[in-house]
């Protein structure tokens, strides 16, 4: 481990170019060529792209939006912009399955909010974006990336400093609208140091990584594009869609290139167990893989263990697993479980976890035992605290094994959301960043048991229930405003199941079947998320507070216990609804007036 000295990303690119012959390798689906760019070549390619952006009129501090599905295009554009002091704004490219309208809406929001002057994309996506330039006032040009690849423009030197903004990381959806996490070079240098030196014990120039992770997501971009430049590691990239289509290609790349480091969300490991066939394991050798990181969505120990069981036959060691906690607002990583020790599960009393907010240890196999995966402790110079979710002062941290909201302090924590002073203010409490995650510390080690923000995480992406509910509420036959969406952790398969429950007057099996299909379709097309279960209930069944607010957590409990289905005619709701319903009958009205109604809370 070398002595830590913070450097800008721009400086790290130049240092790497002078020092090593390692670099980036790009696996392509239909070719065995696997083009390789040494750090010297990366320096030159990024200089060309940076020069081309300067020639487009972009100056230090300007924002440039990048929608680039090709890994090499994305990386060189991104690094080129950073070297020119231009602030890149990565946006995810459109995928298939007919959800273009929602995609365009999101993209326009990010372009507008970031104030991007130029958007760089492929020729094909440029056509799909259509008139987006006309709708975003600050956006001057939409530029195709293809001509930039052969640009001859030279990068004019720009002084880039640690406190300059390096890039904006738009997080997927906050009640329908993404927010731009503003990351400085100092944030990145601090987190890269934590990850590579302190967390993973990276050997400069020796360890080599393999990644299929999307580069518009923090784990792929910071973990596998930026951090390895600081530490001179070779990285082999695969297109994300290739991994989803043929998961075996991920392990094949690790095997062939003797990869030592690779990360994936929980679902990636589960997908390998489910999809990789016996014959695809022939010749695989995973013995070089010393860090198999897992993060970005809730970790289920049984999925990781199933992966280890299946692939130990080809040299994989369960001890390679590193369970990670992180979020974009803290650059990328918050804590890692201890290197080389595998998965650690804390068995706690599931009932007491939620009723008395205490994580009490119980014996494994006990009926109430809830397995909680341990994700390690805070990095040096960083603090993790647990607070009551409504503690806005942040002055009364909870004790060991007390459940509350996890909050963070330290040099990797963002200064704020770009151009969103109100949202930034509400993201902090007394100098602590509020993560929205519920959990506890045991001997200083992080355990996550849920989320206070009701976010649904599927395949590493965040979805907000309000978005799903809004889409479902637009379907004819659905009672708008009477839709609840939630994720359930009930142990079904390999991830959180997404459930949409709506109230309707429609009756009859066939009509309800059609209506449910319409809701599923609307959610898929609007959000790009497939609901695992769509449930139609009669009017008045969904739980609400006395003020008429939907109760998502309650709905989830009712769903999990099966009570939701029993409540078909029960009008055990808030008083206002009861009055409205019962007013139809004088008798009912009197009864309510005299005896009061049953309320939820």
């Amino acid at each position, binding site marked *: 481990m070398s002595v830590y000295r913070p450097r800008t990303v721009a400086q790290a690119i130049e240092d790497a170019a002078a020092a090593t012959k390692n670099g980036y390798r790009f696996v392509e689906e239909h070719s065995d060529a696997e083009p390789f760019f040494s750090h010297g070549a990366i320096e030159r390619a990024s200089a060309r792209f940076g020069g081309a952006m300067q020639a487009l009129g972009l100056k230090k501090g300007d924002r440039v939006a990048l929608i680039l599905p090709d890994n090499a295009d994305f990386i060189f554009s991104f690094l080129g912009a950073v070297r020119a002091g231009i602030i890149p704004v990565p946006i995810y490219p459109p995928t*298939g*399955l007919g959800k273009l309208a929602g995609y365009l809406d999101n993209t326009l929001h990010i372009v507008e909010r970031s104030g991007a002057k130029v958007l760089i994309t492929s020729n094909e996506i440029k056509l799909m974006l259509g008139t987006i330039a006309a709708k975003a006032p600050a956006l001057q040009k939409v530029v195709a990336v293809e001509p930039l690849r052969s640009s001859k423009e030279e990068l004019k030197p720009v002084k880039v400093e640690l406190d300059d903004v390096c890039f904006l990381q738009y997080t997927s959806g906050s009640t329908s609208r993404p927010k731009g996490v503003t990351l400085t070079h100092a944030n990145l240098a601090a987190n890269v140091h934590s990850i590579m030196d302190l967390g993973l014990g990276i050997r400069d120039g020796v360890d080599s990584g393999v990644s299929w992770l999307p580069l518009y997501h923090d784990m792929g971009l910071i973990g596998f594009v930026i951090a390895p430049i600081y530490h001179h590691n070779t990285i082999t990239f695969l297109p994300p*869609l290739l991994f*989803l289509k043929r998961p075996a290609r991920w392990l094949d790349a690790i095997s062939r290139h003797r990869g030592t480091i690779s990360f994936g969300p929980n*679902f990636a490991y589960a997908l390998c167990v489910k999809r990789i066939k016996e014959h695809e394991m022939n010749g695989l050798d995973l013995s070089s893989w010393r860090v198999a990181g897992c993060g970005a969505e809730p970790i289920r120990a049984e999925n990781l263990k199933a992966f280890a069981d299946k692939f130990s036959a080809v040299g994989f060691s369960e001890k390679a697993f590193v369970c990670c906690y992180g979020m974009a607002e803290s650059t990328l990583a918050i804590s890692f479980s201890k290197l080389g020790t595998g998965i650690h599960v804390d068995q706690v009393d599931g009932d007491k976890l939620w009723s008395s907010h205490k994580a009490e240890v119980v014996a494994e196999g006990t009926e109430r035992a809830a397995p909680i995966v341990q994700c390690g402790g805070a990095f040096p110079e960083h603090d993790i605290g647990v607070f009551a979710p409504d503690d806005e002062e942040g002055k009364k941290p909870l004790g060991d094994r007390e459940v509350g909201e996890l909050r963070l302090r330290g040099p990797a924590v963002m200064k704020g959301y770009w151009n969103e002073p109100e949202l930034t203010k509400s993201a902090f409490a007394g100098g602590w960043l509020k993560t929205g995650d519920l959990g506890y510390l045991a001997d200083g080690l992080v355990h996550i048991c849920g989320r206070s923000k009701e976010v649904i995480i599927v395949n590493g992406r965040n979805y907000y229930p309000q978005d799903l509910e809004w889409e479902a509420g637009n379907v004819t036959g659905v009672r708008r405003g009477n839709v609840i969406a939630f994720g359930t952790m009930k142990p079904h398969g390999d991830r959180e199941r997404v459930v949409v429950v709506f109230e309707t007057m429609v009756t009859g099996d066939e009509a309800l079947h059609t209506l449910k*299909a319409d809701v*599923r*379709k609307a959610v*898929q097309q609007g959000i790009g998320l497939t609901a695992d279960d769509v449930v139609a209930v009669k009017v008045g069944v969904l739980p609400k507070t006395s003020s008429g607010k939907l109760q998502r957590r309650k709905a989830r409990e009712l769903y999990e216990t099966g009570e939701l289905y029993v409540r078909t005619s029960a009008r055990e709701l808030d008083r206002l609804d009861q009055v409205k319903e019962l007013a139809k009958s004088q008798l009912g009205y009197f009864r309510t007036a005299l005896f009061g109604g049953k309320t939820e809370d």
Partner: protein
Amino acid sequence: MTESSHLVGDLGIDSLGVMEVLADIEDKFALSIPDDALRDVDDVASVIRAIETRLKKDGRLEG
């Protein structure tokens, strides 16, 4: 299941499922279907069209 069955709405296949079906189709027909073809896929008929288009391109299906 009919030609107008929607992959997501009617058959409940999610985006990971679509990628799995795609891989199976590629293996079965010895074809390669580019990622951007996904944008034209929503129901069973569109999957059949995607296969036919590529078989014709290879000269393996009379058009």
